[in-house]
């Protein structure tokens, strides 16, 4: 059996967790706790493009916290 995480022709989803981290996830496997599907299911290439588009925030999540705390 092939590894469902590395199947170029299978459908994938993009998941995101509360830390705004993104993950490519095979559509055939249930979404794990703590993650939400934010894109797909769709082609692996499209999912990767979506991750690149949405995960551009280069701030460490600590810095986002800091900015929220100091913007008065």
């Amino acid at each position, binding site marked *: 059996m092939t590894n469902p995480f590395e199947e170029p022709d299978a459908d994938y989803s993009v998941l995101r967790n509360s830390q705004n981290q993104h993950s490519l996830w095979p559509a055939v496997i249930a979404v794990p706790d703590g993650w939400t599907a934010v894109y797909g299911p769709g082609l692996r290439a499209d999912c990767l493009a979506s991750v690149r588009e949405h995960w551009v925030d280069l701030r460490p999540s*600590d810095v986002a916290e800091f900015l929220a705390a*100091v913007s008065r």
Partner: protein
Amino acid sequence: MTGRDSSPTPDRYPLASQQQDPDHVIRSSKHTFSSALRIKGELRLDALKGALDDVVERHGALRTRINYGETDEGEGYQEVLPPLPVPFTVHDIPVVPGRSRDEIAVDVHLGLCDELIDFSVTPSLRAALYRFDDHDAVLTLITHHLFGDNWSSGVLRRDLAACYNARVSGTPHALPTPFQYHEYASRQRGFLRSEKADTVRRYWTDTLSDTGMYAMPADRPSGPDGLKSPSAVWDFLIDPDDSAKIRAGAGLNRCTAYHVFLAAAVVLAEKIRGSSDVTLLTVNNGRNSKDFQDSVGFFSSMVPLRLEFGTCKTFREIMLLARKSSMDAQRNLMTLEDIIPLVPDLMKPFGDPQSMPFAFNYARPPMASADIQFADSVEPVILPDEAPAMYHRGACMWGLTMLPAGEFRCVVEYEPDMVDADTVDRWGSDFVNLVLAIANTPDRPWRDR
């Protein structure tokens, strides 16, 4: 257009850049704005309750519901609900032996600093009245940061006073009709798509492309997460005499106290890090359009100010450079959320575990004391020692406030795990000395500091 009142679903408006929350951070219920007001004299509870409702009716931001659109993958939006009553509770404060009313008022304020408010609660205003007796009480107000900021707290106090006085006297108030926050959000979206915005983006790219945000060096790296210790505070009150001199010294150079503080901050930064090219993260009140001076909402934003002062000779030249840099930024105002993608390396120094992210905030009271009066007298409750209200791990926050009486208070909030109290005390003292030197002896060469 059909009448808004008969419309079954509220109108939808875009979110402002300030309200976007990709990291799920701003929406936290701990990001609140609170005020505590000591009210003396006869107070009519019905009029106060009515005035709170009037304020929510005036300011749509306080009855706004945000949908981040994350579950349905759509774009986030906000909708403004019809007027809603403000939750208002009244409590009688028991006599506490050995504690004065002033001390108890401070306790009430401190308790308020720990209160939470969910961002999805509407209206985003909750009030409580703590009564010592019929003629002496503390009123507390709390809103979520997504619908307010420092300036808004002042607008809220003024409007509450005017609405209360109008109800008691039976004569209408003379408050200006405020522009609504959703109008700001829509204008900002429009601006970001405009040609003018491209000019502004070029300004920020040119100004910041080869620099990083200034961060304070830590004495040691931060410990593992989960071992958080409470933040510590260095608090210094500049006496009324010196505060007046700072204002006067700034005025002689057609500057404000803020420019003196900025100049002192960059000279201190040079002393600590050795570079005369300093980019400070500053808090901006975001009211660059006169239209929104009377509005409540999340207008404030973080703005990077870069001062390259290697060629300056005197304190005065740095003060003037601070004024120029701050005016240029004001003319090209754009939120940090919109600047960061243009200059991705800007925030890198904040990720260094040996450094403490640094932010510089100067807050003036936006309303004169005379504008917030009702009953016999109303005064904000001032904390004798600034509480670490804005704690964040590994951060160094440099705050300057002008108290209602005109003195300046300098508050440095920091993480004791990363830096010794002695180090912060040295920085703080150097800063205050620099402020006084710049204001009083502007012709001194800064390298002699």
